[in-house]
């Protein structure tokens, strides 16, 4: 009797499987299938970070899609967002200890699937997708600000399984994934000088490369070379030997700092912000660019005469998305530029935008 029932069930499910295979591949359903996701850090003590969303045609955004869909905000500063198929992972950094988390959502509807809490994700910084996993740089508790409790958290999707922590000293920050390797940089004030390479099939540290300052990996260029920002230099590196193939100075003024490096959509140009604070703590600076085969970086000719709190390039249209934070107590803007530096428009987003996710 039981066997018959099972046989019936198997037959039924098999035929429904065949029937579903018969259908053309269904388009994903949801309000957030295609468009621009803006990562807004919010004001730290107010825990009011948000993800804003707009489509490429729109000039106004939905300021906080997570709250719209789920009825309550993510409850913290938003540090990053990445997707693996139908899963999206949001990094949430609350001002109080113990309330940080990675929220896993349906990437098309933004409905919460599950949450991985502070014992696994504490002081999250950046996230990158690699295959069916996401890698999250975390500072750990870091209560004495000595940056000794950091790690990379690994989450497998769509099983939502927390795989492991890989310890990284000195405040792990920027992440770049390419071809089975995760490159991990550290914050400039973390005291470290090591670029860590993690093998993503074993999730073990494969190599550490010592540089002359804290490294921040930028990405892989059109020729398959790794670019790393190290102090006041941009370094082009061989991804097998880790040999420095080119070292470009970013100006000669040590009081200026370079940040927000991003590749153009053809991966042949790198844009970045070069800024400094004057005696009154007013930030000044401009945005510059250089080519991946240039012999030097021209910091006399700004590409855009402004600084930004975030910079990204839309891989499908090639437009530059720049984030503007007027203050931590009012909404910021996403400003769009063409690749020649001319302004397209600006879209009001959430508080303190720092990054973009395109799909």
């Amino acid at each position, binding site marked *: 009797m039981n066997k018959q029932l099972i046989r019936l069930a198997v037959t039924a499910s098999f035929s429904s499987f065949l029937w579903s295979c018969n259908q053309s591949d269904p388009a994903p359903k949801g309000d957030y299938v295609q468009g621009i996701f803006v990562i807004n850090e919010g004001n730290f003590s*107010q825990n009011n970070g948000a993800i804003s969303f707009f489509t490429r045609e729109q000039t106004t955004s939905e300021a906080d899609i997570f709250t719209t869909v789920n009825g*309550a905000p993510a409850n913290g500063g938003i540090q990053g967002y990445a997707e693996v198929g139908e899963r999206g992972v949001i990094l949430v950094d609350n*001002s109080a200890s*113990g309330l940080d988390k990675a929220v896993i959502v349906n990437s098309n509807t933004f409905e919460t699937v599950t949450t991985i809490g502070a014992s696994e994700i504490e002081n999250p910084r950046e996230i990158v997708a690699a295959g069916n996993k996401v890698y999250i740089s975390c500072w750990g508790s870091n209560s004495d600000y000595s940056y000794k409790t950091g790690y990379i958290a690994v989450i497998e999707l769509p099983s939502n399984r927390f795989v492991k922590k890989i310890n990284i000293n000195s405040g792990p920050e920027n992440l770049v994934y390419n071809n089975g390797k995760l490159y991990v940089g550290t914050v400039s004030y973390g005291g470290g000088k090591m670029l860590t390479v993690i093998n993503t099939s074993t999730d073990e540290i494969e190599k550490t490369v010592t540089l002359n300052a804290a490294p921040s990996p930028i990405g892989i260029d059109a020729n398959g070379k790794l670019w790393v920002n190290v102090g006041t230099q941009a370094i082009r590196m061989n991804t097998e030997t880790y040999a420095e193939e080119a070292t470009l100075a970013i100006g000669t003024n040590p009081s200026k700092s370079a940040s927000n490096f991003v590749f153009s959509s053809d991966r042949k140009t790198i844009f970045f912000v070069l800024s400094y604070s004057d005696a009154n703590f007013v930030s000044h600076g401009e945005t510059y660019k250089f080519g991946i085969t240039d012999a030097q970086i021209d910091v006399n000719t700004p590409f855009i005469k402004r600084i930004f709190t975030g910079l990204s390039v839309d891989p499908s249209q090639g437009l530059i998305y720049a984030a503007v934070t*007027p203050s*931590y107590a009012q909404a910021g803007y996403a400003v769009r530029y063409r690749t020649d530096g001319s302004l397209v428009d600006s879209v*009001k987003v959430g508080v303190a935008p720092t990054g973009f996710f395109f799909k």
Partner: protein
Amino acid sequence: MLIHYTFSVFNKRKLLLILSVTTGLFVPENVQAQNDSVRLEPVTVRGFAPERFMSGLKVQKIDSSALSNFHFQNISDLLSLYTPLAFKNYGHGQLNTVSFRGTSANHTAVLWNGLNINSPILGQTDFSTIPVAGFDELSVQYGSAASIVGSDAVGGSILLGSTAPAQSLHLSIGRQQESFNNSQTQLTAQYGKVINPKYTFSGKTSAYDGRIRNEYPYTERRKYAMLPSETFQRGLVQDLFLQSENGRELSAHIWITENNLTLTPKDTAGREQTFTKAYRTMIRYQYKAFTFRTSWVRDIIDYAKGDLSRPDHAVTDKFANRLERDFKLTLKNNSSIQIKAGGEWTYYRAQVAGYISPVNSENRGDLYVLTRLQATTRLLVSVNLRQAFITRYNPPFTPSLGAEYYLIRNPDYNLKFKGSVGKSYRVPTLNERYWKDLGNPDIKPENGWNKEIGFEQNYLPDNQNSFYTSLTAYHNRIKDWTYWNASRNYRVENLQQVLAKGIELQAGWKNNLAAWKSGANISYALNKSTQEKAYDAYSIDVIGKQLVFVPVHTGSFIAFVQHNHTRLTAQFQTTSKRFATFDNSQYLNGFMLANLLAETTFDLSKVKLRFQGQINNISDTFYLNVRNNAMPGRSFAVSLIISYQSPDKIKYFL
């Protein structure tokens, strides 16, 4: 003792007047005796009461039954129900700052027996650290009274007072047990004795201990987190009064308070502890028309994260001395002028880790003349003048003019018109001046003009009922508003100009019928507090917008009914939405809270037992604090106060 004084100085320049009158305090009387045109008599006024010179301003005295209802709570719980003050609350037992008439937390002067007890480094008071058990009297003064009480009184002032006890012996012990394993314990002794025919001694000793563990049975409400926190609060109040038949009064006051707040206490790596201690001491000596006051206040803040053994340590000392003299002048037509002339000198010393030097100190001085002219039985006028002096600094000259006029004055009905215009200022906090890099030694004092008019009416239709109504409209523009500018790495600057304007309506009814008593109070306030000037290219998004965490509408309703010694009280308060960002793009929703209190007292001749039961947030309303975390839902509290009172009254000399 009579002092002869030339009145013609009123014709001279304002500042000169202040200097003359106040320096006149120290000059022997015979030097002053010249060309007398009018006689100024010294007058003895007991108590601290700066309210006497606040004519034209709205002053609300909180009655003792309200204070008794809130005996185990902190002052913000009481004020949010009885006044339109808006609180910026970080959670139960956590930081709680005030917005008075749409101003910032730095714009409310909190005075303890006339001494400003705002933290000198922060320029504000955390109201979660002020339990109602810490004082005997509470008045709220609305609008700028900087000419009377000095710096910080821009939006208004909170006046806390100690009073000499009435009974020769009164002992009480009280305990409140609340939901979430929270509790409060209090001990009070009041005593007094006529030592000999010429001297009376009295005093009060009181101790309180609060343990707010916040062990909520839920970790979130409507998906919003409950932030784990615990607060331990302890305090000791000591007041001593010695009064003589010939007009001398000596009093000593000590208020020591400790407040230890820990966020996420179970997380040993990430917990955050803020341990504040305040030692407040004061000696006040009054001899006839002279009053001398000396006080020393030490504020300590220890902040630590993770490892609590090595906190950041900040200590500030404030040593303040004040001498005042009261005069009374009776004019021909029976009108009279009361004048208080005074001078104050304060020394500040701060040891704060982030400051430009290990120890920073400064001197501040104030000279002032306060007057109250009872021109006719219907008309009362106050003119008050103040000039403050600060090391390396120039605060503005601060005058004010206020008047009250009875339009109708009958035994059963009166209607009074009030009006006031006054300058206000706020001396920058020590953080604003001395914080390394981010502070600004050249920052200007904020200053503004407050204007208000109002009506007050009282109606007593019979012996049982009384009605009270007050309606006030105000307009308060504050210039050089300081701001820790996030776009300049949080450096402090005079960047904004704010206009706060609004209307306040308060009405009350009381009924007294033999064994039955009942009453109700209703209050509504409309406050538009907007930025008029701001600082950068994106300020267009901010100008004209309501200030953050300042609700446009607030209201409350309190009603009670009492039969003999049993009383039932219902309290409602409502707040409209509060914006969380300067451009008003984010906000916290408005909410309404209701509480129910029942109490009964068993009177066993000299011993009384008071039982009280309380249901807070009876409708389990969901609302948020400024951290975007949920506030607790419905909670319960029961308390018992056992008191012993001897029937003998203490005889004081009038």
